[in-house]
């Protein structure tokens, strides 16, 4: 049953290429956003570390991959690798700062760090293009075979493939003893040392891992749109990521994917009516979700399934 649902999800994702041929660029974005939310899920959903500045890693990855390609090395996969490494490095360096207190310091330090990065990118137009964005990103074909085309076909398959592979990896990781330790830490960080879990080291590791995932997502965006703007580092991105995660279902990998899909599609439809309208309804959704508690779409689905069986 579970396996069938999972297969259906990925087949549907693949089939959307033929079901919605007009919307390929949008669908490509959906996979990228899903990867970003997945990275948040690893950190917030599994390990219970709060962050308001995850866009820092997304933006760093985007600029790293973008600048690499702009400087003349347009090979996509090595760009992803570079973005992942740099983001993980930033995660490793900043993890001790973020993890040294409770929720509040974590929220504020992550927020502060991401704002610092955004302001730095804004004030260094020589490197990042500043407010105009990074132009002149030219990508080589993926694996030397598939050129990025105007219709977003290559971007669609490329982003979906990366998402699928990294999703499988995340699944392995969360099912491993490491993943179980993370859940334990979220449940009760004081008791975990009694089981022999080095809490600090586990949290630093998952922070860097999550940062690397976010970096790859950013790099994908830079490569498929061949453009990077300051938007990649914005607070809005961090906040929307959290919203999608909670919308889909916290602490479940498919929750992250579902949340990203539902959110991006709703955004597309509603903001065509009016951007203001959209902002208003995001706000209402956030308040509603916070009041109603967790579970999200995935929780709702599970509830319906149980009802159906009973």
């Amino acid at each position, binding site marked *: 049953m579970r396996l069938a649902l999972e297969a259906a999800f990925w087949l549907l994702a693949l089939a959307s290429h033929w079901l919605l041929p007009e919307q390929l660029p949008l669908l490509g974005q959906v996979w990228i956003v899903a990867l970003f939310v997945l990275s948040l899920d690893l950190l*917030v959903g599994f390990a219970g570390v*709060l962050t*308001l500045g995850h866009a820092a890693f997304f933006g760093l990855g985007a600029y790293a991959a973008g600048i690499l390609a702009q400087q003349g090395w347009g090979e996509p996969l090595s760009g992803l690798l570079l973005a992942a490494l740099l983001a993980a490095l930033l995660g490793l360096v900043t993890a001790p*700062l973020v993890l*040294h*207190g*409770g*929720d*509040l*310091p974590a*929220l*504020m*330090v992550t*927020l*502060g*760090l991401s*704002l*610092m990065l955004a*302001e*730095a990118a*804004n*004030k260094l137009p020589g490197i990042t293009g500043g407010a105009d964005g990074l132009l002149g990103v030219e990508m080589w074909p993926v694996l030397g075979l598939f050129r990025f085309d105007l219709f977003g076909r290559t971007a669609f398959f490329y982003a979906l493939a990366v998402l699928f592979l990294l999703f499988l990896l995340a699944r392995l990781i969360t099912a491993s003893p490491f993943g179980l330790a993370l859940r334990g830490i979220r449940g009760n960080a004081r008791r975990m040392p009694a089981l022999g879990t080095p809490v600090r080291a586990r949290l630093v590791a998952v922070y860097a891992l999550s940062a690397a995932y976010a970096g790859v997502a950013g790099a994908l965006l830079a490569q498929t749109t061949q453009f990077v703007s300051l938007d990649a580092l914005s*607070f809005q991105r961090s*906040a929307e990521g*959290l*919203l999608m995660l*909670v919308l889909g279902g*916290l602490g479940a990998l498919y929750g992250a994917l579902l949340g990203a899909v539902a959110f991006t599609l709703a955004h597309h439809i509603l903001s065509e009516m009016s951007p*203001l*309208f959209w*902002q*208003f309804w*995001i*706000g*209402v*959704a*956030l*308040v*509603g*979700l*916070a*009041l109603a*508690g967790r579970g999200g779409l995935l929780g709702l689905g599970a509830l319906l399934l149980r009802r159906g069986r009973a």
Partner: protein
Amino acid sequence: MLTVLVDGIASGMLLFVLAVGLSVTLGLMNFVNLAHGAFGMAGGYVCVVLLNRHGVPFVVCLLAAALFAALLGLLLERVLYRRLYGRDHLDQVLFSIGLVFIAGAVVDWFLGARQQLITLPAWLSGRIELGFVGIGVYRLFLIGLCGAIVLALHLGLVRTRFGSRLRAAVDDAVVARGLGIPVERLFAVTFALGSGLAGLGGALGVEVLGLDPTFPLKYMVYFLIVVAVGGANTVLGPFVAALLLGVVDVAGKYYVPQLGAFAIYTAMVVLLILRPQGLLAKAAAR
């Protein structure tokens, strides 16, 4: 030099009036309220609309702004905030970011996204020449008024029964409840008071800090810094923090404009790492 200092002190005092309510929300109820700036924005817009469209005198506008924000705070606290006390911080963060988005969209819808401008009454505009430097009358007015508020709050917190109950509740809500202090009601009143002050600060700040629908997000970091650095149980802590912040911010923007807001964000992160005591240590220990 002196002009920069006075400007810095004036904006620091404004920040204090805007943020002091948040220190109670965070300290007393351990509630991460990122929407605090929305009350300031509400006050600012009440002032702008009354002043520009209806020609109400400025002082009356200020009072109306504070009153409106206080009532709004009371209403939201009773209807929504109350349900989220003691919940996960993530829920509170999502909830308050949602409120910020809603407030921004509503304001944008009715009044537009542009910066709002006000014309100050004649008795508040112009400059006074003090020796070599000219100092804006409005800045002096701000310093005087906010200084009076600080003094009143300090005396209120230290000398009155309400103040001592509030301090007791911030120190240890459980024991305070056990002693028969109505912590819930105390908090509702303080929340409304804090929102009202934020509304007043927003109205006063239209001329200094600017006002547009992104106001709550733009200044969220500043409020958080004031509270985090200042601590929750005194008036003077956040006051000193706000003054420092105001002076550093204005001086930074004046002397090294190419750094922009970078200096403030760096200062915040460094301070948080060096000095996580006060409010933060308390919140973490719970």
